[in-house]
Structures are given as structure tokens and as C-alpha cells.
């Protein structure tokens, strides 16, 4: 088993996400995280899916997603073949604000992005392991809420979807 990033370039039509996830569901492969956004190309969407599975499964899944009419092209990558990030938000009660917290924020390269009457929101960008480590520390600061995005990723190999589309 490996961690893979599946990167799909699609039309932005209703139902496309549904069709894509059905292929994972059918093979019993759990989706660890998923993000969708526009891409550099006009009207081309990208869906980034993180899964932990075998190479055989991920190859089959990628080929089957490519059969979906509105999928332009799919790729899969190992972690070392992509540059990726996730963003995490932490909600901390104002009462926990003290020099200890400030130190932690500096140490983790995090930042406060919002200060309200009763709480502050800290943001950190990084890999899951890093944002998770910060989460654990913030338990001591009575953290109220935590949310982490799915990964966004760009591939290291140089072929682009634009080249594919022009072909």
C-alpha cells in the first residue's frame, strides 16, 4: 500500500464528482481527502484525490476514471512526484492566549488570521504530519475546533494538460 495523489482534469459539469467517486467506491478504495478547483486552462477543472492503496488498484482506477466522458485526463503520483500542501485552521479560546502559545505559533510557522472577542483562528500550511503535530500541541491550549483541507498538488513531471488538449 502506498499513498497516491490522483489528479483529474475534467469538464465542470454537474455530476462529474459523483461519477469519479463511484469508481473508487466500487473498488472499495477509501478517499482520504479530496479537493476540486479550476485549473490554468479555461473551463478545465481539476480534482485532486488522495488515496492509500496498491499500485494495481490506482492504475485501474485512473484508467476507469478516464473512461468517464467528461474526464479529460487522469494521472496518479506517489508523494515524491508531487509538490503538495494542505491548509489547517485551529480555533483557540482567547483565554488561552499567552506567551506559550505565541512561541508555538512562531515555532510552527503558523499565524493568527482572525481575532474575535472570544477566540482567535490560527492558520498553518504544510503537510498532514506537521499540521497534526500542531493540533496535538494545541490540545493543551483548549482548542475549540480544527479543520484541515484536502491536499492541493502540482506534479513534478513537466507534461501539461494544455499540451494534451492541443494534441
Amino acid at each position: 500500500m502506498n499513498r497516491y495523489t490522483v489528479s483529474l482534469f475534467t469538464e465542470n459539469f454537474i455530476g462529474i464528482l459523483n461519477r469519479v467517486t463511484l469508481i473508487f467506491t466500487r473498488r472499495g478504495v477509501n478517499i482520504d481527502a479530496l479537493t476540486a478547483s479550476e485549473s490554468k486552462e479555461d473551463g478545465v477543472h481539476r480534482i485532486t484525490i488522495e488515496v492509500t492503496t496498491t499500485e494495481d488498484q490506482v492504475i485501474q482506477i485512473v484508467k476507469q476514471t478516464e473512461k468517464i466522458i467528461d474526464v479529460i485526463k487522469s494521472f496518479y503520483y506517489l508523494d515524491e512526484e508531487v509538490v503538495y500542501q494542505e491548509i489547517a485552521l485551529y480555533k483557540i479560546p482567547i483565554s488561552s492566549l499567552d506567551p506559550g502559545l505565541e512561541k508555538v505559533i512562531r515555532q510552527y510557522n503558523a499565524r493568527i488570521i482572525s481575532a474575535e472577542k472570544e477566540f482567535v483562528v490560527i492558520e498553518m500550511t504544510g503537510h498532514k504530519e506537521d499540521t497534526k503535530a500542531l493540533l496535538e500541541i494545541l490540545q493543551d491550549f483548549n482548542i475549540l475546533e480544527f479543520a484541515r483541507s484536502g491536499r492541493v498538488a502540482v506534479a513534478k513531471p513537466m507534461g501539461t494538460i494544455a499540451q494534451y488538449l492541443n494534441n
Partner: protein
Amino acid sequence: MKDSRIRGAEIVIKSLVAENSEYIFGYPGGAIMPVYDALYDYADQIKHVLTRHEQGAIHAAQGYARVSGRVGVCIATSGPGATNLITGLADALIDSTPLVCITGQVASALLGTDAFQETDVVGFSMPGTKWNIQVRRVEDIAPAIAKGFHIAGTGRPGPVLIDITKDAQNALGEFSYVPCLGIRSYRPYPVVNMSEIERAAEVINKAERPYVVFGQGVVIGTAEAELKAFLDKTGIPAACTLLGSGALSEDHPLYVGKLGMHGNYAPNLLTNKCDVLIAIGMRFDDRVTGDLKRYAKQAKVVHLELDNAEIDKNVRCEVSVLADCKESLPLLTAKVNENNHADWVSKFRELEEDEKSAVVSLDLSPTKIGLTMGEVIRYINEFKNDNAVLVTDVGQHQMIAWRYFKYKQTRTQITSGGLGTMGFSLPAALGAQLADVNRQVVCVVGDGGIQMTIQELGTIMQTKAPVKVVLLNNDFLGMVRQWQQLFFDKRYSFTELDNPDFVKIAEAYNMKATKVSERGNLRDTVAEMMSHQGPYFLEVVVEKEDNVFPMIPTGCSVEEVRLT
């Protein structure tokens, strides 16, 4: 100035006419009534067949599509009408049958509110369609239908579903039909990679015991002549899958038989003796391969296939040629050496003799009192034309009919292969017959399966389609009973049927009907049926507990094919 706009419902019909659709198989209801109303004025341009159930409509459209090679069209209402299509969609998807299905939907303002007969048809049908869409605006109707036909009929064909809200059907819009010629995210025909052809030729030219296994891809690609040319040049023996039957005439000297669980002895056994296995337009279904871990391990596999997702899915290949075999086969034929593998072919012929004495002769010329399914097929062969179409249901009769029917021409084998849908045959035979009323269409069906869609006798009556229905009655769900006998200690749990008087039922539908229980009358009755002008119903009472052999039990290797 006169308003040139027409209703969405009429746009639906005009679009189907623009696609040269000949038949619509359908069933009306509230949410599709505007389309039916529009249809009323187009009786001279497109024919509608009212089936007795929406499942019947979609199977009829499948039968039509597979005989004609064109996109089958089917219409149903929202809610239960649409959900009744689901089995047919799944069947058409797995057997690569091109269909455009149009369903009515509640008005768009009611979507998501659990309105009367609202179901999420797009959601229901998503895993069972090649593509589907909901149309809520009149201006989107014609483009959706155009796109649907393009997707259904190109590449690896499949069913599409277009769900049209009632308000879109009722709204006024301009009609102009632009056929869909391409979609940027969909490339149905990969360009042949010549280096793959060269590598394939190299492997084939070095082979001592090469072996071709072909499937429905040859039929879909209309590559029958290309396959024959390849075989004639290379002298390689060839066997077919269930849905590949007919792509090569069984009279061809290099045709060696049928693959799979109930296929022929030699083609299964020798799969594990060849040194190069050339798979053409087939997908290594588990019913063909048996245990994958012991399937053709000694062989280098060359796979000619249009669908990239099939390559290396079940069997890893040495060389894959990703293309329509219509294109790749001639290129490959040009590169391979002329050859002759007479010794190797004779191995197949020797084993064929073993199968003949152990199985075939007992099936076709039985000495016991009870009638066999095989002898019925033998007489059908005697009185059929070369282009006669065999439509079968699912079960023992399906395997026996497939084993013994003499396939001489392409598109003569219509059966539910991938899904194994009981109830498929009667409506599919109707559709097959309408695709060509001048061909003999014989529907071979079991007493279990016929009762799943028996209401379609009404459609046969109304259309007067001259289908020949041959019911092989063993008063059992025979195939399940066979498994119970062989693998469950003969514990016949709920497989015996108390059956009605089928002849009376057929007669009630105004069909000429006969029942045969003795050998003496069989041949003459089959002869009479085959030359009868209209629809004909023949019930043959066969031995209750006969089994189909050869057989590769589940989980066994192709080498373990059993003759008894």
C-alpha cells in the same frame, strides 16, 4: 410573423428522426406525455413499439441495436418507468450495446421535493450508463440528444440516458439539429501506435503455438473480414467468447470452438499450452479465464483492444495494441509472416473428438428416452438460414444453444453475456426481429426466464413480429439446479417450478403454439416452425435433470475443464 418555435417534446422526436432512428421502444406515463403527444404526428417518420413493461422496451432496443449495429432508442416515463430501465442499462453497459434512453422527469420546479413519480434518475442510472444528463431547458434538448447518439455509438459503445423535465418538454424553442462530431474530453478511437504493431508482429512471428481468442470487439468494430484475413495469412487457430460467436464462420478451417465455463474442451484446455495468446476485442471475463492465477501463465499475451481500461485489467500482456481492431488488424496482418500451424491445429481436432464422444453425441443424438436441449438445437440448425439470429435467455438452454447453434454469420448471436439477465431473450428477440423482418429470429428460452418477461408475448402479437419462440421446459431453474446437484449435495432448494400451460398462454396471445414431448414429432415440428410465416411458439419438454458439460467449475483452471 409566424412563430417558428416548437415544443421541446417535438424537438425530441425531430432529433430522433434526424438521427435516422427507425424504431422507438417505449412506454408512456405522466412525465413523458408531451413526447407521446408529439409522436402522434410523426407516425410516418418513426415507428413506436409499445412494449408491456419498460424492461421489455430496453431489452427490445438492445436486440434491435445488436442485430442492426445501430443505436437503439427507448423511452419511458419518470419514477417507476425510469427505474424499470435499470436492469437493461446495466446489461447494455457490460455488453457494450449502444442505446439512447429518454426518460420524462417532473417539472424542474419540483425537482428534489419528492414530487409524485420523481426519482433521482440521473443518480440511479449513473453507474449503469456510459453517460447521462438531465435536461431542464428546451434549448438543451437537441444538443443533449446529439451528444447522446455520438457517445452511445462510438468507441466502446454503451447506453446513455437523457432525463428531460416536463417543463422543458412543454416549452417552446427553435429546432435546428447539429449532429455531434466530437467532444474534447472524449477520444473514442486511439491512434494506432506503429511500434506496438511491430512488437506484436515480432512476438507472433516467433511463436510456435500461437492462439487467437476473439470477442465481441470484432463484431462491434465490424472487423470480421480483417480477422479472417489475419487468420488466413498466419494459419493461427482461433476460438471465440460467448459474444464473439458469429464473427468468424464456424466452417472456417481455423475455427476451433468456444471459450469459457461451458465452452468447448480443446479451446479451454489448450489455452494453457499455447506460447502466444492473441486476444482480439475481448476482455478476459472470469467466465472465460477461470482461475486467473493459472490462466495462460506460460504464454506471452498480445492484446488488441479499444478500451484502455481493459488492458492489463485481468491478464497482464506482453504487448498491447490500443486501437479499434478494425484498424489494428490489417496493420498487423501486413507485418506478420505467412505461416501454417497444422500440427498445432490438429491438437485441437484431436481433443474435439474426445468432446464429441463424451458429450456432443449424447447431447445431439441421445439414446435415452427424454429429449435433450441439444437435439432441439440440432434441428434448428437443419432448418435455419445462414443469417438466422439466435436470441437466448440465461441458463442451461443458453449454454447448450450457444454450444450447438452453427454460427455462420456475424450478428447472429444475441444474448445477455456480462450481466446474465434472465428475461432478456423474449423482448430482445422482438427487437432483433424488427431490425430485419426477413431474417429468421429464434428465441431459445427456459421456463424460468420466459416468466420474467412473458408479458412481451403481447408486444409480439401487436407487432406481428414473426419471432420463433422455443421454450426448453425442464420444470426447473435448470442451471441453478445443476450447481445444486454438483456443488450442494443435490439439495434442490427452491429451484423446481410448477409451471402453467405455456401453450395456452401463447395461444391466448394469438400465437401458433405447439408442445412436443416426444422425439418422434420433434424434427417435423421444428421444420414447420422454421418455415412458418408469423410468430410461432414451440414448447419442448426436455429431460428434467440434464447437465451442461464440459464445465470449468468456479475457481478452477481452464485446464481442469471437465467432460463429465
